[in-house]
């Protein structure tokens, strides 16, 4: 046989009960496997450790105190500890200590531990429920001693009687003395199996009172035996007030049911009307006996019948539940359809009613209004951007046509000259309508007062036509009749008090519904007029936006473009997508970016517009100039921007500036003194050469008057020069002034000058400005004199040379003449030939000499 201790140890380890042995100081001496398992610990984890180590901190002190108490006194009770295992799961453990006297005299405690988590969970939830419920309860045994009560009861008792409820007290001790005999009787009855109730009003501290409804019921055990009394108390202070109110108002409610706008009928299972409130007559026009003879479902509009049937099956499936949302048209006694909104409750099961209660009221006006508002909203949505007007108008007439079974629906719009109405849209959904439009092709335009459209235009108010009218204002009456149209309305489309078009609606019934359609037509007249005009404006604006050569865009202040026009794309060579994606600063020349951003940042509500010039860069990298106008948009964070390409102008400016610079350089380089006399302002400008040539100081941009010139003209020349100038200026056909005179230099000497001026004239031919050049020709004159002098000398030289040449030549001729005359002696002849030869040699020498001298001869400069 094995060791009995081992056996016990094995049993202890196998049991579902945890066992733990602790010494006087609370250290665990031994524990079985189950104990360790509860906490998810091993045997060695717990041995020789304080048992509180594996308990939650909040109960350590308490459990240690219990332990110490138990060691000391040997008495203790089963207690429940909320602990956590190593997995963090919450456990409720029931612990029961037993004192073990060790043979050595020390005291150990053997604690048995069971997991009661599951068991406790249910009762705890109940506890929570009971403690948190609005009801108070108290449970007593047969001797009326209190067994149990919830927190609410305890609190109330404390509140009302300033006493603490204690278990074991007699409930009768808590009652007001005068109520005790009554209560004894009551409890007896309850203990005998009765359920009793009573209301009690108690004062609360603030001087107000509260009323409690008390229920006294017998408490039974599992076997059904009565073991005590269970009392619940409900605070009915508020509900009592409400009930009182209800009772007080009952008459009024009844009155409302009988005479209010809500009609009430009760229908039995077969559909017969068993009750109708008097207000039904006001709503539908039928009298009580008429109603009782009719089936309301049969008076319902056929289109609404299916919806109603579905709603009714829902009602039948939900006995006692009021079902809302049944809306249907019911024929009024006068023949018109009225919209009814019903709340139906199936009370067939209620013996008092035994029927289906149908509360309904006339919502025709409300419903019509709602339908019209919805229609208008729907029509508004049709006017979306990016859709063309004709398509929109076609959709609009189709929708309006089916709104109330109109047979014919057309939209006519006035042209921009306001001379003609043209049919823009109609509906041809059926063959007879196709035929109608085929046959009335001739009538697609109307002038003022022509046809129903023209008449409506003229009248500026809704006009009607009926087949019964003898004098027809409806040009297409014959064809319309063929298509089954017997009445028609012309509705003017109004925008800012102006007729912009007409809507034509045709009906297959005669127009007895003027009143019915008044509000619809009114809405169409205003809303549709506005929508159409807005769309037209949008189209115009879009066209403008798209065709305008100037750049238009919308930029957000976060640096992106949100809308750009084609002109911008064309100018910058980007596509619209590219422009919308890139930050707009990428488009601006980097040197101008700061200016641009500063200008934009300056925009405020008070000064919402700015203008500035900047360069921007095209996709190809070209630099363009633009004049920007930015305006803060009403919408926060947006700027409307327009820009004009001023590149050409800018380049012109640059050209002009360069040209001016060239001109300025020319005036610096030239030997002519450039002058510019503004005649009207008498300002005289001298070019720099005035100083270099004449020595008169020229300050840059110095403004002089004509005196600066006249005072330097030689007195002897002055009258002549001035006369010449005036003659040129006074002749409107003369563009040039020229004069030669002497002009005094700064050093007092006179220079010979040629003065030439180009005269600028205004439209009337008056000289306004003259720009000229004063050339110093002093040198030229002396040069010419020198040349003339030289010529003279040359002439002399030439004469002398010819003279020298002629001398031997004359001899040659003389001797040859003598030879020819033969009037000489023979020996003389020989002599003549010798002379001729000598003269010819002399002549040759002379000519060579002249040629040599010519090479050396240069013109002397002076």
């Amino acid at each position, binding site marked *: 046989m094995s060791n009995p201790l081992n056996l016990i140890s094995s049993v202890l380890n196998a049991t579902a009960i945890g066992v733990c042995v602790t010494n006087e100081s609370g250290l665990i001496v031994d524990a079985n496997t189950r104990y360790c398992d509860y906490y998810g610990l091993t045997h060695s984890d717990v041995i020789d450790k304080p048992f509180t180590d594996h308990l939650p901190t909040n109960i350590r002190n308490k459990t240690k105190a219990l332990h110490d108490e138990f060691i000391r006194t040997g008495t203790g009770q089963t207690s429940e500890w909320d602990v956590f295992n190593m997995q963090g799961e919450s456990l409720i453990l029931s612990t029961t200590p037993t004192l073990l006297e060790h043979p050595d005299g020390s005291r150990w405690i053997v604690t048995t531990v069971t997991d009661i988590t599951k068991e406790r969970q249910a009762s705890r939830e109940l506890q929570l429920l009971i403690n948190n419920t609005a009801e108070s309860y108290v449970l007593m045994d047969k001797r009326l001693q209190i067994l149990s009560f919830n927190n609410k009861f305890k609190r109330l008792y404390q509140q009302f009687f300033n006493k603490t409820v204690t278990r074991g007290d007699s409930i009768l001790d808590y009652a007001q003395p005068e109520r005790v005999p009554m209560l004894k009787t009551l409890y007896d009855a309850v203990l005998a199996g009765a359920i009793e109730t009573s209301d009690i009003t108690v004062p609360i501290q603030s001087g107000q009172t509260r009323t409690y409804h008390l229920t006294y019921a017998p408490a039974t055990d599992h076997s059904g035996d009565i073991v005590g009394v269970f009392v619940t108390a409900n605070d009915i202070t508020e509900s009592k007030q409400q009930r009182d109110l209800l009772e007080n108002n009952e008459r009024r409610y009844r009155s409302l049911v009988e005479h209010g706008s809500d009609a009430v009928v009760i229908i039995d299972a077969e559909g017969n009307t068993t009750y109708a409130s008097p207000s039904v007559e006001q709503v539908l026009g039928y009298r009580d006996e008429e109603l009782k003879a009719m089936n309301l479902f049969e008076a319902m509009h056929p289109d609404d019948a299916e919806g109603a049937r579905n709603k009714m099956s829902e009602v039948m499936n939900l006995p006692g539940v009021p079902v809302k949302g049944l809306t249907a048209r019911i024929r009024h006694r006068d023949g018109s359809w009225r919209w009814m909104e019903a709340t139906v409750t199936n009370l067939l099961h209620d013996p008092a009613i035994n029927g289906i209660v149908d509360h309904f009221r006339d919502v025709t006006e409300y419903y019509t209004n709602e339908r019209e508002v919805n229609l208008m909203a729907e029509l508004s949505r049709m006017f979306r951007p990016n859709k063309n007007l004709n398509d929109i108008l076609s959709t609009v007439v189709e929708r309006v046509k089916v709104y109330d079974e109109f047979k014919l629906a057309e939209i006519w719009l006035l042209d921009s000259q306001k001379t003609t109405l043209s049919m823009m849209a109609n509906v041809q959904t059926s063959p007879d309508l196709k035929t109608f439009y085929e046959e009335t092709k001739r009538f697609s335009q109307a002038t003022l007062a022509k046809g129903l459209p023209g008449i409506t235009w003229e009248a500026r108010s809704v006009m009607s036509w009926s087949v019964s009218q003898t004098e027809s204002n409806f040009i297409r009456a014959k064809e319309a009749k063929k298509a089954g149209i017997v009445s028609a309305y012309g509705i003017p489309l109004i925008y800012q008090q102006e007729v912009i078009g007409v809507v034509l609606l045709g009906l297959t019934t005669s127009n007895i519904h003027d009143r019915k359609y008044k509000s619809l037509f009114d809405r169409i007249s205003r809303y549709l007029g506005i929508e159409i005009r807005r769309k037209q404006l949008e189209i115009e604006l879009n066209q403008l936006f798209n065709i305008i050569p100037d750049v238009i865009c919308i930029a957000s202040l976060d640096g992106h473009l949100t809308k750009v026009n084609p002109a911008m794309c064309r100018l910058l060579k980007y596509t619209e997508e590219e422009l919308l994606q890139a930050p707009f600063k990428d488009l601006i020349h980097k040197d101008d970016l700061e200016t641009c951003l500063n200008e934009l940042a300056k925009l405020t509500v008070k000064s919402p517009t700015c203008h500035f010039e900047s360069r921007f860069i095209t996709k190809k990298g070209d630099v363009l100039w633009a004049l920007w106008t930015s305006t803060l948009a009403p919408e926060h964070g947006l700027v409307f921007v327009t820009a004009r390409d001023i590149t050409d102008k800018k380049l012109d400016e640059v050209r002009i500036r360069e040209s001016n610079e060239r001109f300025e350089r020319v005036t610096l380089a030239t030997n002519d003194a450039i002058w510019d006399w503004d005649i009207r302002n008498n300002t005289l400008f001298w070019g720099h050469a005035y100083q270099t040539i004449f020595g008169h100081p020229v300050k840059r941009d110095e403004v002089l008057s004509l005196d600066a010139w006249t005072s330097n003209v030689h007195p002897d020349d002055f009258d002549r020069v001035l006369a010449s100038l005036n003659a040129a200026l006074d002749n409107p056909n003369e563009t040039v002034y020229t004069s030669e005179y002497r002009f005094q230099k700064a050093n007092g000497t006179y220079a010979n000058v040629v003065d030439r001026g180009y005269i600028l004239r205004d439209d009337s031919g008056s000289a306004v400005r003259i720009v000229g050049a004063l050339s110093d020709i002093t040198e030229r004159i002396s040069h010419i004199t020198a040349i003339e002098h030289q010529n003279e000398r040359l002439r002399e030289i030439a*004469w002398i040379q*010819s*003279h020298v*040449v*002629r*001398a031997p*030549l*004359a*001899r040659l*001729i*003389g*001797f040859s*003449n*003598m030879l020819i*005359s033969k*009037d*000489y002696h023979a020996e003389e002849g020989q002599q003549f030939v010798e*002379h001729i030869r000598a*003269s010819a040699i002399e002549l040759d020498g002379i000519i060579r000499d002249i040629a040599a001298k010519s090479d050396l001869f240069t013109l002397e400069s002076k």
Partner: protein
Amino acid sequence: MSFETLIVDDDALIIFIHKKLVAKNGFPSEPKTFLNGQTALEYLLSQPNSESQYLVLLDINMPVMTGWELLDNIQDQPIGKRVKVAMVTSSVDRSDKVKADSYPQVVSFLEKPVTNDMLQSLKAHFVS
């Protein structure tokens, strides 16, 4: 009637040619020749009482005294009235011709060399 012919030229060969031509054309006397105006003037001034007429073939440009200076010198002399001058020059300058017109003695303006025809027409001044 008779007249004396004077040839004044600084070119000896021209004097030789002219002398030959004068002789050949039947002029009344052997011509007297001078190499400049000065010697010709001295000769003319040395004949104060002579009744004779003088035809002077006068070169313009000569050393010592030009033809013009000779003319100037005889202007106020009695001899001046009996002298007829044919200016003889190697090249004709218009201004010379104009200048020659201002001297009453100048009857002709000839370009060298003088020809028979020229001398014949000069002779006519004295025959008439």
